[in-house]
């Protein structure tokens, strides 16, 4: 069973190894409270990494997730202060994320601007806009209902963790069980073949960016609640975290191959690492060194294991038979 999971998401082994190591070396690591902490701390980055997975699967990239989150957060903050309840602010934050994602999509799918440049530009524009409309000031203090719904606890489970779980589930579902999801993979695998098979490449691509924007909006809701503040400078470095989670999870930057499950593992690996280093009170300078080294080694062992597996399987003599139907778990 475990073997199977590790097989599907190679990085699983690294996570388990790290988990065991941290359990042994820190007495606090295994506390339920701490494990929930880890999940809470990775909830935002997981959600955004899910959106990023859609984008990267189409062989794109989104550098603007940090500023998108900040901008959404600022919008949420401003509308919350209008005293119109919490529904509209939450909705408008998510919609604003979707809108900016849509703009990314148009630039990339329709105007054919390389995703790197388009989203780099958006990164700069959205950040500037967030600073501009707030005049650089953080917006503070929100109603407690909002704080509860975005970052409270439900029977001692942090609500952001629940959101992350739901987002992950929906994403897995979309990617594996809908037409749209299949089209995402097809486009990333071979854009021209997808186009000639009657897939509306532009629209699917645009939607990938919209989805990424929506995840930023959801991330912004949680962030705003967690901080009880909307900061125009929030989300610095989110793009690297999200992309790293996606790639550690085995999704290829070339698109077409990868899974949400992998991304989740990637995000958890990073979060667990940061948490563990805090718990072990590793010096901040060394922490950076360790984080870098662990990420690289985790991916290295994953690669290594896969290449081993390939070559050992090859020794088996099975020649292609005409027989069809050996049902294998999808993907």
């Amino acid at each position, binding site marked *: 069973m475990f073997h199977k999971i590790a097989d599907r998401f190679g990085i699983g082994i690294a996570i388990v190894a790290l988990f065991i190591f941290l359990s042994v070396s820190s007495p606090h*690591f295994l506390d339920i409270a701490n494990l929930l902490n880890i999940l809470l701390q990775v909830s935002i980055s997981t959600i955004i990494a899910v959106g990023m997975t859609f984008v990267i699967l189409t062989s794109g990239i989104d550098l603007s997730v940090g500023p998108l989150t900040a901008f959404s957060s600022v919008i949420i903050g401003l509308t919350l202060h209008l005293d119109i309840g919490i529904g509209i602010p939450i909705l408008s934050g998510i919609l604003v994320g979707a809108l900016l994602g849509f703009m990314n999509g148009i630039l990339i799918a329709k105007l054919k601007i390389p995703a790197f440049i388009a989203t780099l530009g958006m990164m700069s524009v959205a950040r500037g806009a967030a600073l501009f409309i707030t005049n*650089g000031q953080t917006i503070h203090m929100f109603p407690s209902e909002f704080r509860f719904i975005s970052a409270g606890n439900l029977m001692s489970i942090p609500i952001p963790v629940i959101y992350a779980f739901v987002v992950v589930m929906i994403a897995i579902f979309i990617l594996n069980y809908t037409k749209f999801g299949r089209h995402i993979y097809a486009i990333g695998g071979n854009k021209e073949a997808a186009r000639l098979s009657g897939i509306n490449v532009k629209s699917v691509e645009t939607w990938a960016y919209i989805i990424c924007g929506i995840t930023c909006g959801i991330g912004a809701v949680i962030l705003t609640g967690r901080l009880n503040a909307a900061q125009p*400078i929030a989300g610095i470095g989110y793009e690297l975290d999200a992309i790293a989670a996606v790639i550690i999870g085995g999704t290829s930057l070339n698109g077409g191959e990868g899974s949400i499950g992998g991304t989740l593992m990637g995000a958890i690996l990073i979060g667990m690492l940061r948490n563990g280093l805090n718990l072990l009170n590793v010096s*901040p300078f060394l922490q950076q060194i360790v984080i870098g080294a662990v990420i690289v080694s985790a991916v290295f062992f994953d690669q290594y294991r896969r290449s081993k597996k390939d070559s050992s399987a090859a020794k088996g003599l099975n020649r292609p038979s005409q027989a069809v139907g050996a049902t294998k778990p999808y993907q």
Partner: protein
Amino acid sequence: GSSGSDKPAAKADKKELKIGFVMKTLSNPFFISMEKGAQKAGKELGVKLEVQVGQEETSIEQQIAIVENMIATKVDAICIAPGGSKEIVPVLKKAQDAGIPIINIDNRIDGDAAKAAGLKPIPYVGASNIDGGYLAGKYLAEQLKGKGKVAIIEGIQGVDNAEGRKNGAEKAFAEYKDIQIVASQSANWKTEEGLNVMTNILQANPDLNGVFCANDMMAFGAIQAIDGVGKSGKIIVTAYDALDQAKVYIKEGKMASTVDQKPDDQGYYGVKYAVDLINKKEVPMEYMVKLENITK
């Protein structure tokens, strides 16, 4: 994991005390000095410090995570320089609820936010950025005899201390009708950007008389830019943080002043009062280190 079995050593004097010391970053000498002061106090008082910082000054989320982790590891007290004065409140409430005493240093926790969150009053050790900015601006204006063109090089926008220092300086300049602010640009606390931005400001304002840099790091860049146009000493530079190198430049006449926020004192008293809190001694609710504008 059977870590729950041994009860938290409730301030047992025998056990070494663990104090969580949270700063914004360690990539700024200011915080390194602060840490030194804290370590000094730690050594004197025989307590163990767990020093944790975010990746960057703006990484407030990471600070929150750090505090959450400290609650999990059951430190005896937390001494924190918050990356955001209000953002940090919710997690500090959690810490208080877990019975962990807190000392606030450097960046002051927002009073309204604290009250709204039901935070018990938290002692504060620190200094006012607005006052410091005012001090530096005033000194610059005085050096210019109340007349001339000045520029401001700001820190990262939207960050409390950057805004405070800028606002303080602007307040001082406003008191002199012949002082004109001709440029106000951000160099994101960085030396290299300070150099480039200052060069460009000088290009647009060849007759600039003085500049206030919101930290020393940017001032070091600005000094190189001024050197580059051969106006070393002619354009007056005032800055903030009192780094050792700044004092060297002041001695050389390349810089006029730098505001000393005494980060080592902040760190020292932060830890000291944290230990006092653990030992249920009384501590002042506010301890302001004395700001000092270091000049030649």
